[in-house]
């Protein structure tokens, strides 16, 4: 009989308003995984989101913190209207301002968690998007504590009419009152001790985060040395919060403690805007997404042979001839805006001016202006590109034309002015000796100097180029930013044999476990890992220059490849067995571990533009971000929660407007124990569960 009554209720209610019915399921945490069960009427219902936040030692935190983590199994409900920043203690005005901005951004991201927040309004958080008279701060030293007439005094009652930016669309600010959630206050207190507002490779990114709830007061306390640590803490805090469908509110883990700091200093992403152009907004979204993963370096491969979208005040010819269209140019104001946007998100921008290869577009004006051939092998002499370089269009700077270095000096000056960078990437990849071999100008130059056309001489030419370019860069740096900048160069036999280990950082592109990698370390080079078979994102589609051969011979790297590729394990495998210990250092006294600054995923844009960028990048780069932040030891002892946390993290990024690819059917999130492979099944049944 009881069954029949329930049936009737379901059907009747369904006719009225089906999707306001509660879900028939509840979720329980078993062996660190959320498992869906049909709800029996006796038990309390636990929503999926609540389970995800609290199940397993690390809940839905991504990347996994490296220090102590304690999360209570309960959550409390609150509305973002009742959230406020009650304390910002910083030792500098600039840091205070940055923290205020970071909390505004944090708040906006919480509003995005509402499932009815319109997708198309999830834009980069620019000045138009965030109103300065944010309720968050207007009421900082507020009336809430003593207030009696709660509802009328609530700031958004007034503010809502004049809401700007994202607030216009936030369903949280339109909802009716709910006594359960309205009661709860959520306060944030931030203390930052260092006045240093500039990010460098040595910046302390550690933080402490404590969430406490006493009755109707929940307080999150953040303590960090630098702004950058505090920013990471806010990101972690946001990952202790999820939407709560039952109350149409947010929920936060009731009490929590997190101590955290990254294992690697350099956690980077490279985007190529030379082969295809990305509008400013796409880059800002990229900075957003990187910050959700606590990544800290954006290597911007601005130009390539195909286009030169960088506007240079000193050399406007470059973009005039080199951009795809006048709309597809990065102007100084755009760059300043992007660099500032990145900085607030804990990201330092590294501009690249690739050379001597990967140059053609934008350099065409030399002869016309009496400066000779600035670039060679552009295919104008009836020579097909494949005889001159690696891909169309071919082109390589003319190392024997002194004007090239003057122009480089001007471009570096502009770059330094616009970016004020800590490091500059100088390229140095894919240099084609075929090009120089085919060039009459080079042959004549070599002959005139009594040199032969051999590989050895071409290396010397390259070295000449590199040294002169380096001097131009440092000279410009001295003049414009009053300091040296650190150059990065791609790995190659040239880099190994010619460049100075004390001046350059090497970006290592070799395949995983290639023996060359050990060579850099043995020579005491500082390195950034970018193994092209593991951490390169563009190897997923067919080739673009007109044949069906696959772009990449091996299988495409999946999120697991990105996750498992471990620089230190690789060094260990290559015989540098002290990479994971403090013992047994190199002859120079340096521990190999300290030479590994970190890693970087790369996206070469031959087959990608703004449309494909996000799905190709995320969540695969999230997986790498955990490798670099946490450096988990594999195989994981106990319950491996990486996949389930990544599922949740991916969903969170989607809520925030990032079009990340799903890695599984949604079903696998509703039953985190269901989607296992044969190997995992066998492993599970042979190793007793902890």
């Amino acid at each position, binding site marked *: 009989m009881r069954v029949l009554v329930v049936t009737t209720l379901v059907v009747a209610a369904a006719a009225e308003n089906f999707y306001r019915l509660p879900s028939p399921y509840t979720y329980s945490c078993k062996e660190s995984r959320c498992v869906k069960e049909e709800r029996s009427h006796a038990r309390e219902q636990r929503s999926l989101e609540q389970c995800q936040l609290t199940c397993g030692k690390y809940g839905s935190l991504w990347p996994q913190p490296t220090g102590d983590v304690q999360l209570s199994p309960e959550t409390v409900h609150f509305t973002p209207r009742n959230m406020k920043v009650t304390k910002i203690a910083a030792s500098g005005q600039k840091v205070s301002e940055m923290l205020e901005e970071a909390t505004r951004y944090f708040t906006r991201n919480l509003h995005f968690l509402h499932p009815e927040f319109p997708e198309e309004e999830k834009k980069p958080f620019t000045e138009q998007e965030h109103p300065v008279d944010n309720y968050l701060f207007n009421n900082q030293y507020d009336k809430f504590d003593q207030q009696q007439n709660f509802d009328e005094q609530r700031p958004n009652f007034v503010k809502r009419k004049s809401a700007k930016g994202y607030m216009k669309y936030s369903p949280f600010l339109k909802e009716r009152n709910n006594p359960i959630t309205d009661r709860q206050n959520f306060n944030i207190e931030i203390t930052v001790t260092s006045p240093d507002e500039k990010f460098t490779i040595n910046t302390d990114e550690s933080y402490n985060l404590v969430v406490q709830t006493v009755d109707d007061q929940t307080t999150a306390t953040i303590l960090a040395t630098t702004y950058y640590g505090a920013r990471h803490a806010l990101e972690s805090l946001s990952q202790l919060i999820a939407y709560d469908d039952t109350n149409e509110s947010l929920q936060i883990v009731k009490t929590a403690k997190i101590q955290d700091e990254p294992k690697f200093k350099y956690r980077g992403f490279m985007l190529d805007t030379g082969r295809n152009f990305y509008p400013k907004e796409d880059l800002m979204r990229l900075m957003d997404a990187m910050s959700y993963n606590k990544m800290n370096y954006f290597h911007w491969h601005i130009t390539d042979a195909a286009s030169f979208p960088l506007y240079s005040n000193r050399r406007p010819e470059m973009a005039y001839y080199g951009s795809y269209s006048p709309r597809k140019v990065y102007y100084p104001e755009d760059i300043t805006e992007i660099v500032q946007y990145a900085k607030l998100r804990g990201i330092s921008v590294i501009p690249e001016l690739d050379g001597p290869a990967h140059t053609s577009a934008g350099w065409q004006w030399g002869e016309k202006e009496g400066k000779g051939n600035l670039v060679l092998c552009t295919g104008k002499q009836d020579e097909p590109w494949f005889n001159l370089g690696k891909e169309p269009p071919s082109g390589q700077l003319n190392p024997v034309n002194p004007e090239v270095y003057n122009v480089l000096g001007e471009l570096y000056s502009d770059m330094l002015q616009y970016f004020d960078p800590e490091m500059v990437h100088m390229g140095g990849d894919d240099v084609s000796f075929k090009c120089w071999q085919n060039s009459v100008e080079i042959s004549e130059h070599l002959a005139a100097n009594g040199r032969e056309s051999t590989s050895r001489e071409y290396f010397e030419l390259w070295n000449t180029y590199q040294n002169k370019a380096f001097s131009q860069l440092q000279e410009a740096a001295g003049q414009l930013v009053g300091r040296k900048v650190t150059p990065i160069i791609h790995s190659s036999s040239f880099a190994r044999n010619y460049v100075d280990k004390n001046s350059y950082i090497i970006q290592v592109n070799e395949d995983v476990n290639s023996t060359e990698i050990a060579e850099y370390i043995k020579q005491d080079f500082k390195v950034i890992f970018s193994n092209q078979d593991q951490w390169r994102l563009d190897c997923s589609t067919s080739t673009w220059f007109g*044949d069906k051969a696959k772009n990449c011979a091996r299988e495409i790297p999946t999120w697991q490849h990105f996750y498992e590729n471990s620089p230190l394990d690789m060094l260990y495998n290559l015989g540098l067995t002290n990479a994971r210990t403090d013992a047994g250092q190199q002859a120079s006294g340096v521990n190999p571990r300290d030479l590994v600054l970190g890693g970087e995923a790369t996206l070469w844009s031959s087959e990608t533009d703004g449309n494909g960028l996000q799905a190709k990048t995320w969540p695969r780069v999230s997986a790498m971000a955990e490798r670099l932040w946490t450096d988990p030891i594999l195989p994981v002892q106990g319950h491996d929660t990486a996949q389930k946390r990544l599922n949740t993290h991916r969903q969170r990024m989607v809520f925030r407007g990032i079009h990340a690819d799903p890695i599984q059917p949604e079903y696998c999130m509703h039953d985190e124990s269901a989607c296992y492979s044969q190997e995992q099944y066998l492993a599970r049944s042979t190793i007793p569960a902890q």
Partner: protein
Amino acid sequence: MTTPQHHARAPHRMRLRVSSMVFGGAVSMATLVLLYQGLSLPPDTRPPGEQLIVSLESRLQRLESDLQAKQLTITEIKNLVRQLAGSNSRANSLLGSQYGVLTASKFVRLPSPWGYRCESGRCIKEVNDGIAGLVTLNQCKLTCGPFGVLWPQPQTAKLGTDVVEFLPTNVFLTPLITEEVLPLLREAFDIFKGNLEKHHPHYSSGSAPWSSHWSPSSAVHGVEVKVQVQGVETFLTLHTNESYELHIHTDGDKTTATIIAPNFFGARHALETLTQLVEYHENRGTLMIVRTASVYDAPAFKYRGLLLDTSRNFFSVAAIERTLDTMAANKLNTFHWHITDTHSFPLYLESLPNMAFYGAYTPSQIYHPHEVRHLVQYARVRGIRIVPELDAPAHVGNGWQWGETHGLGKLAVCVNKEPWLSYCFQPPCGQLNLANPNMYTVMAKIYKELAQVFSPVDLFHFGGDEVNLNCWNTTEEITSWMTANNNSLDVDAYYDQWGVFQEKAYQLLTTVNKAVQVTGILWSSGLTGKERVERYLSNSKYIIQIWTKGSDPVIAELLRKNYRVIFSNYDSWYLACGAADWMSKGNNWCSPYQGWHVMYDNSPHDIARNLTGSPHSDLVLGGEAALWSEQIDEASMDAKLWPRGAALAERLWTNPRTNWQPAETRFIHHRQRLVKRGVQADRIQPEWCYQNDGACRRQQPLLPVLENCLP
């Protein structure tokens, strides 16, 4: 009015035009268009300079009238710009340069130093010296080559080489058609006009800022679209004739596009073709249409489909609408909707609300009947039929759990059973309970509602793939039922019961469809295998959809037995391949990723010919690309579907004798078009290749390569 020509002018006098631009319909900003660029360049290298635009703050607007159409000297212009630029740092920094002036934050345009001319079907990029009569890239592409930028390629086309400028506001419809078809046509024409708007680079949410100082002739130029349709068909079937004729001629200030088609569906395709004979004119801020054209066109295949799986992951109605829009842009005509699977049951049924209650991922991830009806209509206006699939007897599970608590017994067995490896091909498991007669009652209700919301159902997909006999054979209820009915428990006996199930399902659908038989589609499976297919499935009732490799001998078998077939061979037409496996490290089962080249070259007729010696054009109805959604949801679907779906579309519409190579430049342009229409189609090449037709080709190296020259 032909192509823009270089205007002869005194070397030191420049023409100045002023126009205002509207941003997002709200902000108005004065835009100064002046012939400033090239001031200090030698005369022979000066571009025509139509388009140096200085966009200025609104405070400058008042100067607009003073400036308009004045002839000024260089110094006057420079001074003027300085004055206008005021304290704007970018403007000032640029003033010292010869490469242009631009200010203000939002809209920035340098002039382009390049122009294009058409040479043997390719657009060649050159420095625009203002003398050679170079045109913009869009204009060149529109008229270069026998088919311009039409996609899919029509059967025959004759396109003029001139264009004429017009504005979308001056486009109107003259319908010469039957009453029945008029509402459909009006709606299709509105879509057509909407697509014209989307050519504008500043198009946003429904409209574009068409405001500029056009030449008087382009401002008044009218485009009349005459549509002649005799037929009264309002629903697409396998017998619908989708052919059309399209003739464009221009006389004075009027262009007439005449469309002649046997029915609405042909006329709709003609409207799509007509949109593709139009492009945006960057220098004029207008549209341009090919002056004269004549197109005769008809599809090579009747069934040109796309499958979307909304069960593994959910897709919103908006995402499905966007997909239907894009299918229409490619003249694809069948949307195969794999609605349900074991993972979730996202369809709300009035008579069986428990299906979605138990089966939907979340209460908001459900298709309601009014939404389904809306999609059916939405598709029809775009020339698309929706084929619903209710996969059975396998691929059912979540959503079917409520039988026991509601006194109907187990409707499905093995639901979410573990370890899944033993009972199904991927988690979670589930298969219909053949032993429970109530299962058929429920099936009948589902079919009835499907037949209603998808009405009229022309084709119905019964699924029928990946039945796991071990599930049934390990379920006590089923084995005892088998035994009680004197069946053995071997493979053949289970196939017999599967066959019985399929026959009952067919009858149930016929019954609820008012006794009208519907042609069924089934996935190729054990049931469609050599030994069994004729025993269980009649070739007059069923079409078989082939998803195994294109070399599978079962294809020949089916064709010999006169089964109609649809190709979805996974080695070419599965779109989700080449991604991560979703349960373990490594790539998914059907990897690698197949690029557009492979999709384009996959020819059903060639496959049939290779296996049987005949193309079997009567039995091969067409093909379908499948987007299974284990690792895809609407966040990233567009880039998986497009532009590869367009490659499939040309194979199925045109069925060219040639491979992808001659199609490449049209394809790249078409991809750009899809992006303009709001689809996040993937890039296939650097933009450089788009601006340098044919330059991104690899041929055999001609010269010996220096050994080890790449470090």
